[in-house]
């Protein structure tokens, strides 16, 4: 297969950056998208050019590191898949493919397709945990959890923190990410003591980072590789409003 690529190249955070055209040939349909970029990079290195910088690590869809905006879609055209799980058979021979970094004020570009997503870490540091020191825990089965709640919590906990929700959202909002963590802990008895402060602190940190506001468009849910649901955002709204209005 042969492809025309338009790849965002940007030397560093200060550089203006631009789309650069590449043509790549002899691509196997069973290659993953990242392997295709590997092949291109190999060619670039051999030609003495600077290879394309991109984030990637586990290459099995769980670490959340890979993050490309491919032909106008976060992680490309395939549903419920990360960039590393996207295979070239999803494209037609001869296609022109745009490859851009996540675009958000809160995710500044470091180089080429690599962005700084440390804002997510700071949001978690603001409250995405249960404050329990090691060694204080009671027996695990002393806290039964209704199976349905445990399942919902797991659905939310499946978030890999890749930032596709922010990238896909026309508003650059991070609410799907934040609400997934708030929901997971709100559904467990362990999460109750800090439920109010958690919602307030995490939302405040999210706002401070410069993410946009949710207008319930649903692009995040549609593009999330782990299929995190919008119901989590509703739960976060509920918790946040209750915490702000009712708790003393």
């Amino acid at each position, binding site marked *: 297969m042969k492809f025309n690529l338009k790849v965002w190249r940007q030397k560093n955070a200060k550089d203006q950056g631009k789309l650069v055209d590449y043509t790549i040939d002899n691509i196997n349909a*069973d290659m993953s998208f990242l392997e295709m970029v590997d092949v291109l990079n190999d060619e670039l290195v051999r030609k003495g050019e600077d*290879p394309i910088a991109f984030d990637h690590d586990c290459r099995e869809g769980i*670490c959340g590191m890979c993050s490309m905006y491919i032909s106008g879609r976060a992680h490309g055209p395939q549903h419920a898949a990360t960039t590393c799980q996207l295979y070239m058979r999803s494209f037609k021979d001869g296609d022109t493919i745009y490859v851009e970094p996540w675009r958000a004020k809160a995710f500044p570009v470091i180089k080429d397709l690599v962005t700084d997503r440390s804002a997510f870490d700071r949001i978690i540091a603001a409250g995405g945990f249960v404050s329990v*020191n090691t060694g204080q825990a009671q027996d695990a089965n002393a806290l039964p959890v209704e199976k349905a709640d445990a399942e919902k919590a797991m659905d939310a906990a499946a978030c890999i923190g890749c930032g596709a929700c922010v990238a896909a959202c026309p508003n650059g909002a991070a609410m799907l990410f934040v609400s997934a963590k708030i929901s997971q802990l709100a559904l467990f008895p362990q999460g109750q003591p800090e439920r109010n402060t958690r919602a307030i602190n995490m939302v405040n940190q999210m706002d401070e980072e410069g993410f946009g506001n949710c207008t319930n468009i649903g692009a995040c849910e549609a593009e999330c590789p782990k299929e995190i649901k919008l119901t989590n955002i509703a739960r976060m709204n509920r918790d946040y409003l209750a915490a702000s209005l009712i708790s003393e």
Partner: protein
Amino acid sequence: MSTLNSKIPPGPLAEKWSYYKEHAKLVNPANKRKLEVIVVGTGLAGASAAATLAELGYQVKAFCFQDSPRRAHSIAAQGGINAAKNYKNDGDSVYRLFYDTIKGGDFRAREGNVYRLADVSRNIIDQCVAQGVPFARDYGGLLDNRSFGGAQVSRTFYARGQTGQQLLLGAYGALERQVGLGNVKMYSRHEMLELVKIDGKARGIIAKNLVTGELERHFGHAVLLCTGGYGNVFFLSTNAMGSNVTAAWKAHKQGAYFGNPCYTQIHPTCIPVTGDYQSKLTLMSESLRNDGRVWVPKTKEDAKAIREGKKKPEDIKEEDRDYYLERKYPSFGNLCPRDIASRAAKEACDDGRGIVPSGFGVFLDFGDAIKRLGVEVVKARYGELFPMYQNITNEDPLKTPMKIYPAVHYTMGGLWVDYELMTSIPGCYALGEANFSDHGANRLGASALMQGLADGYFVIPYTIGNYLSSEIFTKSIPTDHPAFAEAENAVKERTQKLLSIKGKRTVDDFHKALGKIMWEYCGMARTAEGLTKARKMIQDLRKEFWSDVNVPGTINEFNPELDKAGRVADFIELGELMVVDALNRNESCGGHFRVEYQDQGEAKRDDENYRYVAAWEFKGVDADPVLHKEDLVYENIQLQVRSYK
């Protein structure tokens, strides 16, 4: 050669850890605040250690090369975590978990460590549940368990197929909490490139800021290496692309012994290699072997026809199929341990009966399970796995058998540590997969997560105090100390060397070449002849690397190729040590199979001569490493031939 002291506490097996804890020296809270600890790596071991030590009051600096501590490769573990909770009332106990782990490790692990691991396994589950880790539950709301990796009791806790992710996110949350409280300073996109020693003790690291390329000096009263395994020495493995040995290797070159480097776990259920472009191998959870039946055709002709696409698996009649695991190991069948299942697949393929075009692949067939349980049940049971397989291979495992082949998955070897997890450099610790300690020659399924968290949450917080209690008068050493300058210069020189070669071959070229040598000669079956040959090949490759590698770009920028080059350089040196170790170990055990030492195809241990940990001391790149032995003393169990027949 010397004999190593593992500092196992005295007393009966079950009381050793209690004895240790009761006698270990403590550091008072006021002093803890003055002590700085460096944690390299933020996987299960690193994140849990950093969080716990910060909770205790130490000043912690944590480092990871990824963009966030949450991305460490522990996240990819699918199956589960073992714990001797005996919630199922099926006869499990700490002793049984201990015994299974020792036996699973082919009697090459240390009794004291493994018993402690089994003991604290129960606390891990309590801790994780308290953190809000969403383990699977039954309808009564209590925790569910499954049997995993050939265990005869159900002791594995799991969170769908994402147990590693959930446990890591729990530890990551605890870590970020301490970051938020100001007790941990987190350095993401930083890679440790040198260990700094002052007066023989580990006192800090040189880390590279991967974004700017700047080298930074960091002081610590102790340094914890929680940097995972080195499976990527094989190029193709189930490890993440960035997983590397560099931090551990730097410590090794500074004097930390490397234990049992040749013990490599090859996981039987991975998706076979399809092409040269392939960058990694994907593991399919071991749980698939609960219902899937492994087979190849009985005849080479049928296998050839399948390889060439002339026949389909459905065309092979039942009586013409060889369900070789069921045939060879009737009592465990498809559920026999990983090393055994892997080697059996290799044998079938070496016999010319592989079923993928490359010849290296066998079937994992759900046909019978579907007949027995119905499509819906099978689909529900392996919910995430089947679509994942289909996405990668474009084949539906409900319609045609899966194709699998073993791939490198885990390395039991690692930095040698004593009972306190301290390496042979005072003040330098190794936790989790980075150390060699608990799995012997082969790791059982669902034990890696257990070990990483045991080390980080429950072992190091006690053992580090025993060391740091004597460091309370050591003031923070300013990083303009000559030892830091010297270490930084060494890193600089090496980096400049890499960039100045400007040869013809890319870093990946060399990595692939190394991987091929390792897989061919130091993979599932090893011979003295092959290993001798491999050592020479690796030495040649190393020389070629340092004269012909092409690393683009400069030092002071985000330059992943340069980072990769440094890692591959270390892998090449490690590869040689693995071969040396494999050559030294004239026996077959667990993940180390020497063709010369077998009994009708089964691994043949030599307990008389090789019942020891081989801990290697670095003497220079061109010099032979020196072997130190730690004798394994078994006071509580009888050594026996590991049989799964």
